């Protein structure tokens, strides 16, 4: 059952075990006129209970939870048919945490120390389809996708959806500009496209990353005989 009130507000679920941070973020969300805080929980179990009740538009999840890794939650949500945006809460926005979450299926990240305006803006952006990306993440993704492209010559299978795993030229251009420090507004000016196009590109890149990670996992499982097709 999905709770969604058209046209607004956005319902948000916060999963964060640190009470102070949870409190701040919850307050920040409550302050926003176009958002409503669905629930603020401190563990995976509580999060699942809340999800069973009602499905939010956006989930903010911290990775270091007391009863497990937040990525499992992200992965599970990704498989569900209810379309839901997931943001991972991270202190530094460093590549390791963010990419892990993105691979699991998250579509954005939120810095822990952001003030309420920032939090609101980020969530709004995410719901609208934009995803943030830092220069270091862009740099990393460029290398990773290039390596994938090279190894694909060796016969790595295509995704289940049949999409090619590599990036389009536009996407590579966007990544390169981000890696040089340009923000989305400047990129849209440089490439002569709308802001929305740029953020969509970033979103797509994240999706491809998640899809590829997934398909890689499946491929490996099949290789090891753990999964049978058609089963």
């Amino acid at each position, binding site marked *: 059952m999905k709770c969604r009130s058209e046209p607004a507000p956005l319902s948000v679920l916060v999963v964060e075990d*640190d009470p*102070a*941070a949870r409190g*701040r973020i919850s307050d920040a969300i409550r302050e926003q006129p176009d958002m409503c805080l669905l629930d603020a929980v401190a563990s995976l179990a509580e999060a699942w209970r809340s999800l069973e009740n009602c499905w939010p538009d956006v989930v903010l999840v911290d990775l*270091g939870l007391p009863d497990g890794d937040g990525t499992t939650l992200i992965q599970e949500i990704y498989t569900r048919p209810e379309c839901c945006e997931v943001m991972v809460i*991270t*202190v*530094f*926005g*460093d*590549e*390791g*945490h963010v990419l892990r979450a993105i691979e699991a299926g998250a579509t954005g990240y939120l810095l*822990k*120390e952001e003030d309420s305006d920032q939090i609101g803006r980020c969530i709004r952006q995410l719901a609208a389809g934009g995803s943030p990306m*830092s*220069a*270091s993440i*862009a*740099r*990393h993704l460029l*290398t990773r996708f290039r390596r994938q492209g090279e190894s694909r010559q060796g016969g790595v299978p295509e995704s289940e959806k049949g999409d090619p795993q590599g990036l389009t030229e536009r996407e590579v251009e966007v990544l*390169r500009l*981000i*890696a*040089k*420090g*340009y*923000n989305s507004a*400047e990129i849209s000016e440089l490439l002569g496209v709308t802001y929305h196009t740029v953020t969509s590109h970033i979103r797509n890149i994240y999706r491809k990353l998640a899809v590829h990670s997934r398909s890689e996992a499946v491929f490996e499982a099949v290789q090891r005989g753990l999964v049978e097709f058609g089963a």
Partner: protein
Amino acid sequence: MRQDLRFFLLSWPVLTCLIVVLLFFLLVEQLSPEVNVLQLREVSFFSAAEVEKPDALAGVPRQRVLLPHNWNRHGFAGRDAWYQAQLRLNVPPNRLWGLYLPSVGSNAAIYLNGHFLGSGGRMTDPPARNGFRPLYFAIPNGMLKPEVNEIVVHVTTDPAGRGFLGPLLMGPDKTLNPVYQRSYFIRVTLVQFIAVSLLVSMFYVGALALKTNDPVYGYFAALLGACLLFDGSLLFPASPLPGRWMDWLRMLGSGWLSVFLVLFLHRFLMLNRPRIDRYVLLWGGTGSLLLAFLPTSWLYQVSGYYWDVFTMIWGSYALVTAFVATRQSYSRECWALTLSILVMLGAGLRDWIVYTENPERYHGTLLIYAVLYPMVIFGWVLLHRFTSALSEAATLNRELEERIARRETELAVNYERINEAQQQQALAEERERIMRDMHDGIGGQLISAINVARKDARVELADALETALADLRLMIDSFEPLDEDLGTVLGLIRMRLEKRIHNHNLKFVWRVEDLPRVPGLGPHKVLHVMRIIEEAVTNVVRHARASHIVVAARTREREGRMGVIVEIIDDGKGIDPQAERGCGLINMHSRANRISAVLDVKTNSGGTAIQLWMPVSVP
């Protein structure tokens, strides 16, 4: 077909063969004497054995015979015989004269007009062997008389019945001596030379055989040994062995020559015929023993009709084998072998006819010379094989060494790469651990502390803590794996500084171009660069009163070296030269020095430009 013919006819074996045959003809011709010497052909032959001195010839029955005279032919089976000839000179010569005996079996003593002129060595027990050795006796002045001169020749032989007397020639020393010298050279000196060559070659090939453990060399050395035996039997006129044993040695030489020829040929052509090997060895062994124990009366018959015939049969077999090999392989080597065996066989056959059938045994053996040509050919072919095998081994060795060297460098490179990868891996793991600790630990705690401070309205404390957090973030950023990309470094700084400048109504104008990799841009350098830029931006925020900060980065050459330059340009009021130089600029300079970068500060009333240049080429 025509090409084959040309190949055969123009090849060097044929040419050398022709030359050799030609030489043989010349040799034979050399032995015939010149015109103005007297050849005594009609002589009296006394077969009585008990005659001791020429004086005792008076009443002994005689026969008129022609020289050269072969006892076997005429059925004389004795040991000693006497010849008497008469020479009528109208005028005794006033020059030195000589008496020349090209060949005698086996020794002769000459008496001229009752005087003993000379002999070819020992006359008894056993007599010297001069069958293949010319004899020359100089006649002292005055011994020759006008009218009739009586020449008596005492011929003795061992074993009995094998004697003969070749031509008897007399003439001026000046004319006859050179003939003798020539014959001596060909029959004695040359044969000695051949013996020495055979001996030396035999030792050399024997050494090769021992060194390479290849039987082909061993059999060749044995072949040379057999030839040496044959040669030796001709060389020692004063040998203590009875004639029968010397002849036995000669037979052994010629017989075993064919045995080892067959064995050598099998090894050389790499034919595996053990049955024939066994037969030929068996024949050689039993035949040698047989000949040793046969009574003398049978010896020469058996030798002539059994031993020598079989020798020639084996020789023919060798010839056919070599010929077949030539047809198969068309190699010049095989062709040379075939021809040399043919030459030997031809000489052997001729010798056999001379010794066994032909009464004129004084012609001597041709085989001893014929042997030289094949030996040289065989030796050259073998040596050629050996040296080419050596050079092939050397080449293979060298190739192997090269391959090993290449493999070693490959391995070294691989090890380097593995080492590097391992190092990188270790570093990355370390970084991740530290980051995670910071993320889960200090980071979260600082944020909580900041919040508490803000709640308590402790602004200064909150600011200080925030500065600490910001610095921590910078350090975390410097740990990120950035692939030596300066652009990404700038992007990270922007993210950290964006909020701060936004609060002061400043804007970044971003002008970062495609930059090459900056070698050595690891966490240490990155941190310094970030701090320099942070300091520059902080200065602008605090002092410059600008509205825009341009951050530009591009490639720039400096003093002939390629590099990248980062410029922080603001449109503020510039740095007042009078104002106290804050620690900021000094810090920036010292940081720039530490990372081998060049920092330039340009300022005027319209703004300030801070330029940081870093090299990209390794010096």
